[in-house]
Protein backbone atom coordinates (compact mmCIF):
# COMPACT_ATOMS: atom_id res chain seq x y z
CA UNK A 1 0.00 0.00 0.00
CA UNK A 2 2.31 2.67 1.27
CA UNK A 3 5.47 0.95 0.04
CA UNK A 4 4.55 1.12 -3.63
CA UNK A 5 8.00 1.97 -4.88
CA UNK A 6 9.66 -0.82 -2.90
CA UNK A 7 9.62 -4.59 -3.17
CA UNK A 8 7.29 -6.05 -0.59
CA UNK A 9 9.21 -7.82 2.16
CA UNK A 10 8.24 -10.90 4.09
CA UNK A 11 7.45 -10.31 7.72
CA UNK A 12 6.04 -13.17 9.75
CA UNK A 13 3.84 -12.36 12.74
CA UNK A 14 3.06 -14.89 15.45
CA UNK A 15 0.00 -13.55 17.24
CA UNK A 16 -1.70 -15.00 20.26
CA UNK A 17 -5.32 -15.92 19.72
CA UNK A 18 -6.71 -14.05 22.72
CA UNK A 19 -5.11 -10.61 22.58
CA UNK A 20 -2.96 -9.66 19.62
CA UNK A 21 -4.97 -11.52 17.00
CA UNK A 22 -8.03 -9.78 18.39
CA UNK A 23 -6.09 -6.51 18.35
CA UNK A 24 -5.24 -7.01 14.69
CA UNK A 25 -8.90 -7.78 14.04
CA UNK A 26 -9.97 -4.62 15.86
CA UNK A 27 -7.55 -2.64 13.69
CA UNK A 28 -9.05 -4.26 10.59
CA UNK A 29 -12.65 -3.68 11.63
CA UNK A 30 -11.82 -0.06 12.43
CA UNK A 31 -10.30 0.27 8.95
CA UNK A 32 -6.89 1.45 10.15
CA UNK A 33 -4.46 1.59 7.28
CA UNK A 34 -1.68 -1.01 7.63
CA UNK A 35 1.28 -2.12 5.50
CA UNK A 36 0.75 -5.42 3.72
CA UNK A 37 4.15 -6.99 4.33
CA UNK A 38 3.02 -8.87 7.42
CA UNK A 39 1.84 -12.48 7.21
CA UNK A 40 0.07 -13.57 10.33
CA UNK A 41 0.25 -16.98 12.00
CA UNK A 42 -2.27 -17.41 14.78
CA UNK A 43 -1.04 -19.32 17.82
CA UNK A 44 -3.01 -20.21 20.96
CA UNK A 45 -0.66 -18.25 23.23
CA UNK A 46 2.66 -16.43 22.96
CA UNK A 47 3.95 -19.26 25.17
CA UNK A 48 3.37 -21.54 22.18
CA UNK A 49 6.00 -19.66 20.20
CA UNK A 50 9.12 -21.77 20.23
CA UNK A 51 12.18 -19.54 19.62
CA UNK A 52 12.95 -22.02 16.85
CA UNK A 53 9.84 -20.87 14.94
CA UNK A 54 11.47 -17.46 14.72
CA UNK A 55 14.82 -18.91 13.67
CA UNK A 56 13.18 -21.17 11.10
CA UNK A 57 11.30 -18.20 9.64
CA UNK A 58 14.43 -16.04 9.42
CA UNK A 59 16.52 -18.80 7.87
CA UNK A 60 13.70 -19.89 5.61
CA UNK A 61 13.20 -16.55 3.88
CA UNK A 62 11.53 -14.04 6.20
CA UNK A 63 13.05 -10.58 6.48
CA UNK A 64 11.58 -9.91 9.90
CA UNK A 65 9.63 -11.69 12.60
CA UNK A 66 7.15 -10.13 14.99
CA UNK A 67 5.79 -12.00 18.00
CA UNK A 68 2.92 -10.46 19.89
CA UNK A 69 0.97 -11.69 22.89
CA UNK A 70 -1.17 -10.49 25.76
CA UNK A 71 0.30 -7.92 28.11
CA UNK A 72 2.13 -9.49 31.07
CA UNK A 73 -0.43 -10.46 33.79
CA UNK A 74 -3.19 -10.58 31.14
CA UNK A 75 -2.43 -14.00 29.65
CA UNK A 76 -5.52 -16.09 28.97
CA UNK A 77 -3.62 -19.06 30.39
CA UNK A 78 -2.32 -16.90 33.25
CA UNK A 79 1.43 -17.44 32.72
CA UNK A 80 2.15 -18.35 29.09
CA UNK A 81 3.53 -14.95 28.18
CA UNK A 82 5.85 -14.93 31.22
CA UNK A 83 7.62 -18.01 29.85
CA UNK A 84 7.55 -16.50 26.36
CA UNK A 85 9.20 -13.32 27.61
CA UNK A 86 12.19 -15.25 28.96
CA UNK A 87 12.61 -17.43 25.88
CA UNK A 88 12.23 -14.63 23.38
CA UNK A 89 14.59 -12.35 25.27
CA UNK A 90 17.15 -15.17 25.23
CA UNK A 91 16.72 -15.49 21.47
CA UNK A 92 16.95 -11.74 20.91
CA UNK A 93 20.32 -11.76 22.65
CA UNK A 94 21.55 -14.85 20.80
CA UNK A 95 20.76 -13.64 17.27
CA UNK A 96 23.50 -10.97 17.00
CA UNK A 97 26.07 -13.59 18.06
CA UNK A 98 25.28 -15.49 14.86
CA UNK A 99 25.45 -12.33 12.80
CA UNK A 100 21.70 -11.75 12.49
CA UNK A 101 20.53 -8.23 13.20
CA UNK A 102 18.43 -8.48 16.40
CA UNK A 103 16.21 -5.66 15.12
CA UNK A 104 14.75 -8.08 12.60
CA UNK A 105 13.06 -9.86 15.46
CA UNK A 106 10.72 -8.12 17.87
CA UNK A 107 8.35 -9.32 20.52
CA UNK A 108 5.69 -7.07 21.97
CA UNK A 109 2.35 -7.06 23.78
CA UNK A 110 -0.90 -5.86 22.20
CA UNK A 111 -4.34 -6.43 23.72
CA UNK A 112 -7.56 -7.13 21.82
CA UNK A 113 -8.85 -3.58 22.30
CA UNK A 114 -5.64 -1.88 21.18
CA UNK A 115 -6.37 -1.64 17.46
CA UNK A 116 -4.58 1.66 17.24
CA UNK A 117 -1.52 0.32 19.04
CA UNK A 118 -1.49 -2.66 16.67
CA UNK A 119 -1.50 -0.33 13.68
CA UNK A 120 1.43 1.59 15.16
CA UNK A 121 3.40 -1.61 15.94
CA UNK A 122 2.94 -3.02 12.44
CA UNK A 123 3.63 0.25 10.66
CA UNK A 124 6.76 1.04 12.60
CA UNK A 125 8.14 -2.50 12.50
CA UNK A 126 7.55 -2.73 8.75
CA UNK A 127 9.20 0.66 8.29
CA UNK A 128 12.21 -0.53 10.27
CA UNK A 129 12.52 -3.73 8.24
CA UNK A 130 12.36 -1.69 5.02
CA UNK A 131 15.11 0.54 6.37
CA UNK A 132 17.24 -2.53 7.12
CA UNK A 133 16.46 -3.87 3.67
CA UNK A 134 15.83 -7.45 2.67
CA UNK A 135 17.67 -10.14 4.64
CA UNK A 136 17.64 -12.49 1.68
CA UNK A 137 18.59 -11.71 -1.90
CA UNK A 138 16.16 -12.15 -4.79
CA UNK A 139 17.83 -15.40 -5.80
CA UNK A 140 20.24 -16.34 -3.04
CA UNK A 141 19.13 -16.57 0.55
CA UNK A 142 21.17 -15.12 3.40
CA UNK A 143 22.30 -18.44 4.80
CA UNK A 144 23.37 -20.08 1.58
Amino acid at each position, binding site marked *: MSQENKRELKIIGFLCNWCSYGGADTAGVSRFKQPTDLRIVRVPCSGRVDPLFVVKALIGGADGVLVSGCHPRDCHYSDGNFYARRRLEMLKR*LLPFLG*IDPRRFRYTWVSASEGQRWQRVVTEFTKLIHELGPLHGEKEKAFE
Partner: protein
Amino acid sequence: MNWDHYMEKRRKPLSEKGLREKISQILKEVDVVISWKMGFDPIHATPHFIRDEKEIEESVFNVFCVHNLTTYLPFMKEKVGIVVKGCDSRTLVQFIQEGLITRENLKIIGIPCSGVVDVKKIMEEIGESPVLQAEILDNSSLKIRTLDGEKFFQIDSVLAQKCKTCRYPTPLIYDHLIGEPIKSQIGWDKAYEDVTEFDKKTLEEKLSFWKKEFEKCIRCYACRNACPLCVCQDRCIAESRDPHFVSQKLELPEKFMFHFIHAIHLAGRCVECGECERACPMGIPVKMMKKKINYEMKQLFDYETGINVDDKPPMYTFKVEEEKIKEHEL
Protein backbone atom coordinates in the same frame (compact mmCIF):
# COMPACT_ATOMS: atom_id res chain seq x y z
CA MET B 1 47.60 -16.23 30.38
CA ASN B 2 49.07 -17.79 33.45
CA TRP B 3 48.26 -21.34 34.49
CA ASP B 4 50.55 -21.40 37.49
CA HIS B 5 47.91 -22.61 39.87
CA TYR B 6 47.33 -25.61 37.65
CA MET B 7 51.02 -26.33 37.42
CA GLU B 8 51.39 -26.18 41.16
CA LYS B 9 48.72 -28.76 41.73
CA ARG B 10 49.68 -31.06 38.93
CA ARG B 11 52.94 -31.79 40.70
CA LYS B 12 50.95 -33.84 43.17
CA PRO B 13 50.09 -36.96 41.21
CA LEU B 14 46.75 -38.54 41.91
CA SER B 15 46.96 -41.88 43.59
CA GLU B 16 45.18 -44.37 41.40
CA LYS B 17 45.49 -46.80 44.29
CA GLY B 18 43.21 -44.57 46.34
CA LEU B 19 40.72 -44.41 43.48
CA ARG B 20 40.67 -48.18 43.07
CA GLU B 21 40.20 -48.71 46.79
CA LYS B 22 37.25 -46.33 46.77
CA ILE B 23 35.72 -48.05 43.74
CA SER B 24 36.04 -51.42 45.43
CA GLN B 25 34.38 -49.96 48.53
CA ILE B 26 31.36 -48.51 46.73
CA LEU B 27 30.98 -51.47 44.36
CA LYS B 28 29.50 -53.27 47.36
CA GLU B 29 26.68 -50.70 47.52
CA VAL B 30 25.91 -50.25 43.80
CA ASP B 31 25.37 -52.43 40.73
CA VAL B 32 27.90 -50.79 38.46
CA VAL B 33 30.68 -48.23 38.76
CA ILE B 34 31.57 -46.10 35.76
CA SER B 35 35.21 -45.09 35.49
CA TRP B 36 37.88 -44.81 32.82
CA LYS B 37 40.34 -47.36 31.50
CA MET B 38 43.02 -47.26 28.83
CA GLY B 39 41.54 -47.36 25.37
CA PHE B 40 43.00 -48.80 22.17
CA ASP B 41 46.25 -46.95 22.73
CA PRO B 42 47.89 -45.17 25.70
CA ILE B 43 46.72 -41.68 24.73
CA HIS B 44 43.06 -42.64 24.48
CA ALA B 45 41.01 -43.48 27.54
CA THR B 46 37.64 -45.15 27.27
CA PRO B 47 34.66 -45.43 29.63
CA HIS B 48 34.90 -48.45 31.88
CA PHE B 49 31.82 -50.14 33.36
CA ILE B 50 32.85 -52.09 36.43
CA ARG B 51 30.49 -54.81 37.59
CA ASP B 52 33.06 -57.19 39.00
CA GLU B 53 35.91 -56.83 41.51
CA LYS B 54 38.34 -58.16 38.90
CA GLU B 55 37.73 -55.21 36.59
CA ILE B 56 38.74 -52.60 39.16
CA GLU B 57 42.46 -52.97 38.44
CA GLU B 58 41.99 -51.59 34.95
CA SER B 59 40.49 -48.28 36.03
CA VAL B 60 42.74 -45.24 35.67
CA PHE B 61 42.72 -41.51 36.07
CA ASN B 62 45.11 -39.31 34.10
CA VAL B 63 45.20 -36.40 31.68
CA PHE B 64 43.67 -38.57 28.95
CA CYS B 65 40.42 -39.16 30.86
CA VAL B 66 38.51 -36.63 28.80
CA HIS B 67 35.01 -38.15 28.73
CA ASN B 68 32.09 -36.86 30.70
CA LEU B 69 30.85 -40.19 32.07
CA THR B 70 27.63 -38.75 33.44
CA THR B 71 26.13 -38.84 29.95
CA TYR B 72 24.95 -42.44 30.54
CA LEU B 73 23.12 -41.73 33.77
CA PRO B 74 19.64 -40.52 32.72
CA PHE B 75 19.03 -43.83 30.96
CA MET B 76 20.34 -46.20 33.61
CA LYS B 77 17.83 -47.90 35.85
CA GLU B 78 20.27 -49.53 38.28
CA LYS B 79 22.21 -48.10 41.19
CA VAL B 80 25.32 -46.47 39.80
CA GLY B 81 28.64 -45.37 41.18
CA ILE B 82 30.41 -42.77 39.08
CA VAL B 83 33.79 -41.09 38.92
CA VAL B 84 33.64 -37.41 38.06
CA LYS B 85 35.97 -34.50 37.45
CA GLY B 86 34.98 -30.98 38.47
CA CYS B 87 33.33 -30.13 35.15
CA ASP B 88 31.44 -33.44 35.02
CA SER B 89 30.02 -32.87 38.48
CA ARG B 90 28.15 -29.82 37.20
CA THR B 91 26.27 -32.12 34.84
CA LEU B 92 25.16 -34.17 37.86
CA VAL B 93 23.89 -31.04 39.58
CA GLN B 94 21.98 -30.08 36.44
CA PHE B 95 20.49 -33.58 36.15
CA ILE B 96 19.26 -33.37 39.74
CA GLN B 97 17.81 -29.88 39.15
CA GLU B 98 15.84 -31.21 36.21
CA GLY B 99 14.82 -34.46 37.93
CA LEU B 100 16.60 -36.61 35.36
CA ILE B 101 18.35 -38.73 37.99
CA THR B 102 17.69 -39.63 41.62
CA ARG B 103 20.42 -38.69 44.01
CA GLU B 104 19.71 -41.74 46.23
CA ASN B 105 20.56 -44.15 43.41
CA LEU B 106 23.95 -42.57 42.91
CA LYS B 107 27.34 -42.81 44.58
CA ILE B 108 29.76 -40.14 43.42
CA ILE B 109 33.53 -40.31 43.59
CA GLY B 110 34.91 -36.85 42.96
CA ILE B 111 38.38 -36.18 41.62
CA PRO B 112 39.86 -32.67 41.79
CA CYS B 113 41.19 -32.29 38.26
CA SER B 114 44.03 -30.12 37.06
CA GLY B 115 43.02 -30.36 33.43
CA VAL B 116 42.86 -32.94 30.68
CA VAL B 117 44.57 -32.82 27.31
CA ASP B 118 43.08 -32.23 23.89
CA VAL B 119 43.97 -35.53 22.25
CA LYS B 120 43.39 -34.05 18.79
CA LYS B 121 46.25 -31.60 19.36
CA ILE B 122 48.61 -34.45 20.20
CA MET B 123 47.40 -36.50 17.23
CA GLU B 124 48.15 -33.58 14.91
CA GLU B 125 51.77 -33.65 16.06
CA ILE B 126 52.41 -37.37 16.04
CA GLY B 127 50.44 -38.15 12.89
CA GLU B 128 49.37 -41.64 11.99
CA SER B 129 52.14 -43.45 13.79
CA PRO B 130 50.86 -45.95 16.41
CA VAL B 131 51.44 -44.91 20.01
CA LEU B 132 53.33 -47.43 22.12
CA GLN B 133 53.70 -45.62 25.40
CA ALA B 134 52.70 -42.36 27.09
CA GLU B 135 54.37 -41.14 30.23
CA ILE B 136 53.82 -38.07 32.36
CA LEU B 137 57.11 -36.52 33.49
CA ASP B 138 57.24 -34.16 36.49
CA ASN B 139 53.51 -33.74 36.07
CA SER B 140 54.10 -30.97 33.58
CA SER B 141 55.21 -32.70 30.41
CA LEU B 142 54.29 -35.72 28.38
CA LYS B 143 56.59 -38.23 26.75
CA ILE B 144 54.91 -40.11 23.94
CA ARG B 145 56.70 -42.97 22.28
CA THR B 146 55.45 -44.00 18.85
CA LEU B 147 56.80 -46.35 16.20
CA ASP B 148 58.65 -43.35 14.73
CA GLY B 149 60.36 -42.36 17.96
CA GLU B 150 59.73 -40.17 20.97
CA LYS B 151 57.97 -36.82 21.24
CA PHE B 152 57.74 -34.46 24.19
CA PHE B 153 54.84 -32.14 24.96
CA GLN B 154 54.29 -29.52 27.62
CA ILE B 155 50.92 -30.44 29.12
CA ASP B 156 49.95 -26.77 29.17
CA SER B 157 50.42 -26.48 25.42
CA VAL B 158 48.08 -29.41 24.70
CA LEU B 159 45.58 -28.69 27.47
CA ALA B 160 41.93 -28.84 26.39
CA GLN B 161 40.46 -25.40 25.71
CA LYS B 162 37.80 -25.72 28.42
CA CYS B 163 40.44 -26.51 31.06
CA LYS B 164 42.22 -23.23 30.45
CA THR B 165 39.23 -21.34 31.79
CA CYS B 166 38.06 -23.98 34.27
CA ARG B 167 36.37 -22.40 37.26
CA TYR B 168 35.39 -25.56 39.10
CA PRO B 169 38.33 -28.00 39.14
CA THR B 170 36.98 -29.63 42.31
CA PRO B 171 33.67 -31.49 42.01
CA LEU B 172 30.72 -29.55 43.42
CA ILE B 173 28.87 -32.66 44.49
CA TYR B 174 30.38 -35.92 45.72
CA ASP B 175 30.19 -38.67 48.34
CA HIS B 176 33.92 -39.37 48.35
CA LEU B 177 36.69 -37.03 47.28
CA ILE B 178 40.03 -38.44 46.19
CA GLY B 179 42.97 -36.13 46.81
CA GLU B 180 43.16 -32.50 47.86
CA PRO B 181 40.61 -29.95 46.60
CA ILE B 182 41.95 -27.51 43.98
CA LYS B 183 40.85 -23.90 43.81
CA SER B 184 40.62 -22.02 40.53
CA GLN B 185 41.75 -18.40 40.33
CA ILE B 186 39.78 -17.75 37.18
CA GLY B 187 36.95 -15.28 37.52
CA TRP B 188 33.66 -15.40 35.69
CA ASP B 189 34.65 -12.55 33.35
CA LYS B 190 37.83 -14.33 32.37
CA ALA B 191 35.99 -17.55 31.57
CA TYR B 192 33.68 -15.73 29.16
CA GLU B 193 36.33 -13.55 27.58
CA ASP B 194 36.18 -15.47 24.28
CA VAL B 195 32.44 -14.78 24.02
CA THR B 196 32.70 -11.06 24.79
CA GLU B 197 35.66 -10.68 22.45
CA PHE B 198 33.85 -12.40 19.60
CA ASP B 199 30.73 -10.35 20.22
CA LYS B 200 32.65 -7.15 19.53
CA LYS B 201 32.92 -8.02 15.84
CA THR B 202 30.46 -6.63 13.33
CA LEU B 203 27.37 -8.59 12.30
CA GLU B 204 28.84 -9.28 8.85
CA GLU B 205 32.06 -10.64 10.35
CA LYS B 206 30.16 -12.86 12.73
CA LEU B 207 27.84 -14.19 10.03
CA SER B 208 30.72 -15.00 7.71
CA PHE B 209 32.59 -16.67 10.59
CA TRP B 210 29.66 -18.99 11.31
CA LYS B 211 29.05 -19.61 7.62
CA LYS B 212 32.66 -20.71 7.28
CA GLU B 213 32.43 -22.92 10.38
CA PHE B 214 29.03 -24.47 9.65
CA GLU B 215 30.10 -25.10 6.06
CA LYS B 216 32.31 -27.83 7.54
CA CYS B 217 29.43 -29.47 9.40
CA ILE B 218 28.50 -32.89 8.03
CA ARG B 219 25.46 -33.17 10.31
CA CYS B 220 26.72 -36.38 11.86
CA TYR B 221 25.03 -35.27 15.10
CA ALA B 222 28.07 -36.38 17.10
CA CYS B 223 27.80 -33.17 19.16
CA ARG B 224 24.23 -34.00 20.05
CA ASN B 225 25.00 -37.62 20.84
CA ALA B 226 27.91 -36.70 23.06
CA CYS B 227 25.96 -34.03 24.92
CA PRO B 228 24.94 -35.30 28.36
CA LEU B 229 21.99 -32.90 28.47
CA CYS B 230 20.54 -33.86 25.08
CA VAL B 231 18.08 -36.34 26.53
CA CYS B 232 15.38 -36.50 23.84
CA GLN B 233 17.10 -39.49 22.19
CA ASP B 234 14.94 -40.79 19.30
CA ARG B 235 12.52 -37.89 19.64
CA CYS B 236 15.08 -35.26 18.62
CA ILE B 237 13.31 -32.71 16.45
CA ALA B 238 16.37 -32.46 14.21
CA GLU B 239 15.52 -35.93 12.92
CA SER B 240 11.76 -35.77 13.07
CA ARG B 241 9.52 -35.25 10.05
CA ASP B 242 6.63 -34.03 12.14
CA PRO B 243 7.49 -31.31 13.04
CA HIS B 244 9.86 -30.93 10.14
CA PHE B 245 12.40 -28.37 11.32
CA VAL B 246 15.37 -29.68 9.37
CA SER B 247 15.25 -31.26 5.94
CA GLN B 248 17.60 -33.93 4.61
CA LYS B 249 19.48 -31.50 2.41
CA LEU B 250 23.11 -31.04 3.36
CA GLU B 251 23.14 -27.29 2.89
CA LEU B 252 23.95 -24.30 5.03
CA PRO B 253 20.41 -23.32 6.10
CA GLU B 254 19.89 -26.83 7.49
CA LYS B 255 23.20 -26.70 9.29
CA PHE B 256 22.38 -23.31 10.81
CA MET B 257 19.00 -24.64 11.86
CA PHE B 258 20.47 -27.73 13.48
CA HIS B 259 23.00 -25.75 15.49
CA PHE B 260 20.28 -23.33 16.56
CA ILE B 261 18.19 -26.28 17.74
CA HIS B 262 21.06 -27.69 19.76
CA ALA B 263 21.90 -24.34 21.34
CA ILE B 264 18.35 -23.26 22.10
CA HIS B 265 17.41 -26.61 23.60
CA LEU B 266 20.36 -26.17 25.94
CA ALA B 267 19.49 -22.62 26.92
CA GLY B 268 20.12 -22.28 30.63
CA ARG B 269 21.05 -25.98 30.81
CA CYS B 270 24.46 -26.31 29.18
CA VAL B 271 27.16 -26.97 31.78
CA GLU B 272 29.99 -26.33 29.32
CA CYS B 273 31.59 -29.75 29.71
CA GLY B 274 32.85 -29.35 26.14
CA GLU B 275 31.83 -32.83 24.99
CA CYS B 276 30.16 -31.43 21.83
CA GLU B 277 33.36 -29.78 20.73
CA ARG B 278 35.48 -32.80 21.59
CA ALA B 279 33.19 -35.11 19.64
CA CYS B 280 33.03 -32.88 16.56
CA PRO B 281 35.06 -34.52 13.79
CA MET B 282 35.22 -31.26 11.84
CA GLY B 283 36.55 -29.01 14.60
CA ILE B 284 33.59 -26.62 14.70
CA PRO B 285 33.50 -24.44 17.84
CA VAL B 286 29.97 -25.61 18.68
CA LYS B 287 30.31 -24.76 22.36
CA MET B 288 30.56 -21.02 21.64
CA MET B 289 26.84 -20.55 20.97
CA LYS B 290 25.96 -22.31 24.22
CA LYS B 291 28.49 -20.25 26.11
CA LYS B 292 26.94 -17.10 24.72
CA ILE B 293 23.51 -18.17 26.01
CA ASN B 294 25.01 -19.01 29.41
CA TYR B 295 26.63 -15.58 29.44
CA GLU B 296 23.22 -13.99 28.86
CA MET B 297 21.60 -16.21 31.50
CA LYS B 298 24.06 -14.84 34.02
CA GLN B 299 23.35 -11.27 32.90
CA LEU B 300 19.59 -11.68 32.87
CA PHE B 301 18.82 -14.04 35.73
CA ASP B 302 22.12 -14.20 37.64
CA TYR B 303 21.99 -17.93 37.00
CA GLU B 304 24.87 -20.28 36.46
CA THR B 305 24.19 -23.85 35.37
CA GLY B 306 25.08 -26.86 37.47
CA ILE B 307 26.14 -25.09 40.64
CA ASN B 308 23.35 -25.56 43.16
CA VAL B 309 20.92 -28.50 43.20
CA ASP B 310 18.14 -26.30 44.58
CA ASP B 311 18.24 -23.79 41.69
CA LYS B 312 15.66 -23.91 38.96
CA PRO B 313 16.79 -23.59 35.32
CA PRO B 314 15.73 -20.11 34.16
CA MET B 315 13.68 -21.31 31.21
CA TYR B 316 11.61 -23.57 33.50
CA THR B 317 10.35 -20.69 35.57
CA PHE B 318 9.52 -16.96 35.46
CA LYS B 319 9.05 -13.86 37.55
CA VAL B 320 6.00 -11.65 37.18
CA GLU B 321 8.26 -8.60 37.28
CA GLU B 322 11.52 -9.35 35.47
CA GLU B 323 14.16 -6.97 36.76
CA LYS B 324 16.53 -7.22 33.81
CA ILE B 325 14.23 -7.66 30.82
CA LYS B 326 13.24 -4.34 29.35
CA GLU B 327 10.24 -3.78 27.14
CA HIS B 328 11.26 -3.45 23.51
CA GLU B 329 9.26 -0.38 22.64
CA LEU B 330 9.16 1.00 19.18
